[in-house]
């Protein structure tokens, strides 16, 4: 029995009741830790409680609401089965919102390409590298509502963009937000400006993890920049590229922040999530809106599944 001087009753009790095995170097056998096995769970209780109460319970409720015709206030909900889902797919407005998400999809692809290009450029020796990195990432840190409001001033007739274009001689500019054929492109561009920084930083990190000897070896073999990009960088960042792609698609389908702040969904810029929000809160059709949310979830799940098939995760892989 081992007595420990000056230790608390708890420690003494633990040490007395569970004598430690000798500290020999046995491979694969870490020394037994003090404390009970319940401690990690105790630490997890609070975050788990938050997760369950604030995420899983509402989502479970939402699945239930999607099968009812609840209006958000009635004390009882009336079960209607899959009526809501049928309604969604027979509404003509649904095609308009999916057409709008095409703009955001194109924007998302442009976002990835641009982020990858800039990340590659700034991984190598460039002057003012850190300044550029800061400038590119900065928009992601600003509040989305603030960005929306500033871009409203930027895009109004006679606003900053028009002034810039006039300075280079382009006089007859269209209404960037007022013209329905431009409004979605303008909003998607604003979204790209805001979120590109995040993709950029992810790619930058991934590219910088490529060991530099590979570039030297490639130089010795006579590879130019494009070869280096295609054969060294791209394979190395395949995983992060796949992940960013999936996030970009999901983000494009559920575009909400920029269009809601800037146009409220008016003038043909309504996205799927804006339509869901309006259905729930303007027209008091919480049941139908919950069904719309479930549909969006299913679409994202299907896309994830497809992506996993096309870009499978390599096991035990080299990064």
């Amino acid at each position, binding site marked *: 029995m081992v007595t420990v001087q000056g230790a608390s009753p708890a420690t003494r009790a633990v040490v007395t009741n569970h004598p430690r095995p000798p500290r020999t170097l046995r491979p694969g056998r870490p020394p037994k830790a003090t404390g009970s096995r319940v401690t990690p769970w105790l630490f997890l209780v609070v975050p788990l409680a938050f997760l369950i109460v604030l995420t899983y319970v509402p989502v479970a409720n939402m699945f239930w609401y999607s099968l009812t015709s609840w209006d958000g*206030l009635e004390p009882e909900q009336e079960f209607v089965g899959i009526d809501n889902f049928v309604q969604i797919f027979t509404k003509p407005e649904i095609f308009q919102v999916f057409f709008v998400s095409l703009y955001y999809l194109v924007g998302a692809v442009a976002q990835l390409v641009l982020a990858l290009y800039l990340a590659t450029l700034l991984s190598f020796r460039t002057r003012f590298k850190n300044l550029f990195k800061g400038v590119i990432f900065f928009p992601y840190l600003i509040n989305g509502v603030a960005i929306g409001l500033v871009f409203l001033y930027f895009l109004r007739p006679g606003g900053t963009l028009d002034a810039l274009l006039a300075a280079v001689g382009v006089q007859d500019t269209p209404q960037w937000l007022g013209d329905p054929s431009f409004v979605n492109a303008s909003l998607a561009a604003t979204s790209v400006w805001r979120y590109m920084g995040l993709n950029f930083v992810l790619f930058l990190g991934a590219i910088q993890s490529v060991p530099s000897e590979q570039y030297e070896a490639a130089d010795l073999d006579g590879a130019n920049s494009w070869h280096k990009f295609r054969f060294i960088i791209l394979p190395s960042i395949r995983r992060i590229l796949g992940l960013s792609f999936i996030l970009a698609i999901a983000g494009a389908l559920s575009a909400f922040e920029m269009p809601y702040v800037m*146009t409220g969904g008016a*003038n*043909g810029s309504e996205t799927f999530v804006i339509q869901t929000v309006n259905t729930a809160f*303007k027209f008091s059709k919480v049941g139908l809106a919950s069904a719309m949310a479930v549909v969006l979830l299913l679409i994202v799940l299907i896309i994830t599944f497809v992506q996993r098939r096309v870009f499978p995760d390599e096991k035990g892989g080299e990064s």
Partner: protein
Amino acid sequence: MSRRPIIGLAATAAAAALVLSGCSGGAANDDGDPSGEITVLTNRTDLVDTTFKDYATEFEKQYPGTTVKFEALTDYEGDAKIRLNSKDYGDVLLIPSSNVTKDQYANFFEPLGSTDEQSKTYRFANEASFDGTAYGVSTFGSAMGYVFNRDVWTKAGITEPPATEEEYLAALEKIKANGSIPYYTNYKDGWPLATLEGNLGAVQGPKVRTEMIATDSPWTEGNDQYNIDGLLFDTVAAGLSEPDPTTTNWEESKNLLASGEISSMVLGSWAVSQMQDAAEKAGESRDVIGFWPMPWKTDDGFTSVTASDKFLAVSKYSKNKATAKAWIDWFTNESGFAASQGAISPVISDPAPDTLADFSDLGVTYLELAPDPVGKEAVINDIANAAEIDLFGNTYRQKLIDIARGAADGDKESAFADLNERWAAARADVAE
């Protein structure tokens, strides 16, 4: 002994303290004297630390032993509606009118008396009633019309309010020729478009809501709904509104009106004092802002529909209903809030505000909508929701403006025909 049970006990006690602090004890004060604390929910984030604080001090002086606390919500309608699902929405609150229908009032609010009784002292009592019981007291009322810049209109040669829609559009054309934007829709912020619905009843009379739920095509000539949306459509289609509606700005519009860059907006009389304040700040005289009735003059003269802004109600789950009711009484009768807003006071015996000076000169008749038939007060909202036409909102009007300015397909006939079709279908839906 190990410390673990003690730690566990302490953790449980802390967690319990956090959770149980939400429960309040003590007996409810339903009919006694006003005393204790009440919480008042409000949407006036701009007044809660200044004017309302003064009101609270006055009230507490009159009823010693009471404390009034305010909770200001920026997105009042949205936040209040969500809180109604819980039992915790203050003691006094404003009824979130855009999404709670009248047949649901009894679930959330305390009855304040019979409608007949309330109508003897207060205006607009039937707008917050269901089944003959009143659940809310009006905070203030507004009359509908349009604010305009007197200087711009006089310069264009118009000194009398246009009597018909044709005269009105002709007047706006003259103003456009002088270089000012005749009408500002406030499309981007949206809610000013929602206020247009206040004109319901100007031509059809006080029973318009009953007539509207009985018809399959409210957007037909001769109906108020047709007049309201038709006037907006024609104004925009004739190019008499701002060139890019998607970038309008409410706060800026006040300055634009004061300076004459825009010259009119259809709003309620509550807007007059705000416009006058902006004019004063811009260095103009307050008198440059005028308020005229809508261009639907009949043989009896001009009519303006008056309606209430939000209603004060007592929460059904309040633990201090006596004080809550006392606060409502005091606020309505003695605080002078309505007068401070330049609005129509809810107390029948109070005088008309100065902001309606133009109306008194013109001898405008004020019209208050009749109460809905008992039990059918919620039908108009139900039909509107089912048809996804937000009558008291702005989405469908934004669509109409888009069609009028050529940004969406269609014209006035097709747009109104579509609205009538959806209304008829929803009406059949709700009736079953």
